[in-house]
């Protein structure tokens, strides 16, 4: 148990990092509509790509199951939403608080530490992501896109995707000098968004490209979610999960150290 808590310190309820979560709740309380609008985004995508484009595409074969395109693309959209949400909180929003409003200078003058800040922001990103993902999963359920009982693991799966990208996002942000550097975030996100077997199956690529894509981060999440909701389970899913967990852990470590270096020179 303590080992788990060391790896995933945000699970320890009420611990110091939760103060950052409280802070963000206070900040969002006044702009709750922004919070609410986060629900709409993946839903719009599902209606447009899943249903609109779905009509043009028809049914697809996924691991031996013939499913409508909507069922194929929805878990991909879920993974994308988990990535996007967690990157928004840990890159743009984090940078703004670190460099422009100097919020963390105030936080660190209190008994909190750089690691608390990193853990707190990741915890927040995950909580928010969990709420949106849960809502999206309910929508998928209503559309009949949850084909297997394994779907109950899709929510933890989304949290894991969020964790991986939150860690990496936070760590990367500590290396950014100005908002201009956020171009790099776009340069990374857009190809991942488009090519991680999100909108069309891996089989559409030639063998060389397939290998490259198998190594990219969002692909891990897409495979994980798609396999869970369709019920196409096998042991390699654990590898995908481990990949995401490692991203999060390494990111959290690097971010904690870098926040210390930047804010406590």
């Amino acid at each position, binding site marked *: 148990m303590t080992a788990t808590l060391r790896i995933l310190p945000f699970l320890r309820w009420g611990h110091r990092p939760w*103060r950052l979560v409280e*802070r963000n709740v206070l900040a969002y309380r006044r702009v709750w509509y922004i919070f609410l609008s986060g629900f709409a985004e993946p839903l719009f995508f599902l209606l447009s790509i899943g249903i609109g484009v779905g009509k043009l595409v028809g049914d697809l074969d996924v691991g031996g199951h013939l499913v409508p395109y909507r069922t194929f693309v929805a878990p991909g959209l879920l993974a994308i939403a988990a990535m996007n949400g967690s990157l928004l909180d840990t890159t743009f929003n984090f940078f703004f608080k670190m460099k422009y409003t100097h*919020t963390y200078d105030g936080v660190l003058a*209190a*008994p909190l530490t750089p690691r608390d800040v990193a853990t707190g922001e990741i915890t927040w990103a995950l909580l928010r992501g969990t709420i949106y993902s849960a809502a999206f999963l309910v929508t998928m359920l209503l559309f009949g896109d949850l084909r297997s009982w394994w779907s109950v693991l899709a929510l933890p799966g989304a949290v894991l995707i969020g964790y991986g990208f939150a860690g990496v996002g936070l760590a990367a942000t500590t290396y950014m000098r100005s908002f201009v550097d956020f171009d790099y975030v776009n340069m990374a996100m857009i190809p991942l968004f488009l090519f991680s077997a999100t909108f069309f199956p891996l089989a559409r690529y030639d063998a060389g490209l397939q290998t490259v894509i198998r190594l990219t981060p969002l692909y891990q999440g897409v495979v994980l979610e798609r396999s869970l909701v369709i019920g196409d389970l096998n042991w390699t899913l654990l590898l995908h999960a481990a990949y995401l967990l490692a991203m999060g852990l390494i990111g959290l470590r690097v971010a904690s150290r870098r926040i210390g270096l930047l804010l*406590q020179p």
Partner: protein
Amino acid sequence: MAGPMIEAHALTKRFGSFVAVDGIDFAIEPGEAFGFLGPNGAGKTSTMRMIGCVSPRSGGELSVLGLDPAHDGPQIRARLGVVPQEDNLDTELTVWDNLMIYGRYFDLPRREIRERAAELLEFVQLSDRRDSRVDPLSGGMKRRLTIARSLINRPEVLLLDEPTTGLDPQARHLLWDRLYQLKRSGVTLVLTTHYMDEAEQLCDRLVIMDNARIVAEGSPRQLIADNVTREVVEVRLGIDADTAAEVAALKQYGDRIEALADRVLVYTDDGDATAGAVTSDGIGAVSVLVRRASLEDVFLILTGRSLED
């Protein structure tokens, strides 16, 4: 607690090869108001950040509240209040929420924070702005809110880095008044400033810093007594005066003189007599003014430069 609240020996801060604080020693006693007076770049903020446990020291020893900042940062910070040089209020929150969340950072129960926050807003005269956002507050209001925030945990030591820089005179006096009240209530105040009047008003004892080192230490009165004559005659010369010659001529009137860009300071124990002599002499003085010696003069004499360069 017996012994000093804060004690430093050979305390040093380096940024790469640059030395920002160069082996300074000081001890701050419980209940006193202690100042670091020095010009920009002297190393005041670097010192305050080491005391506040948000900047690791590069050398020497430092003990704060009997603990070592290198190991006990969070425990020490729990008992400090910090007013940093640049306000870092949470601009996404209201005045009230700034206090609430700051109390939470110290793990205080919400009910207790609410009580204290209300008292503190009263204390810094911001009760009517409690639901305002931070952005539209004036500089003086933000500073007062930062002070209220720093007091939310009832700190034993309050660190104030240039508390009134950039404020208009009225806002400054209001702030001084609040700090004076805090001092009377027993809080140890540690402040930095480059205003000699602020140092004289607030500090029981101070050190003068220049170029990363401490150049003098004592109470304001004692520093003046030890380093300067009682009074100073300020002589303003005409624009077309032969400055070098006039300065030489003024030398005979004081124990010591300092030539500044726009005037000459003549240090003397009897200002009126010296002023009279200077006026009746044929020197082309545009104006002659007598004043009491200040910390500004101490700094000038010790370093050869003026504080506000």
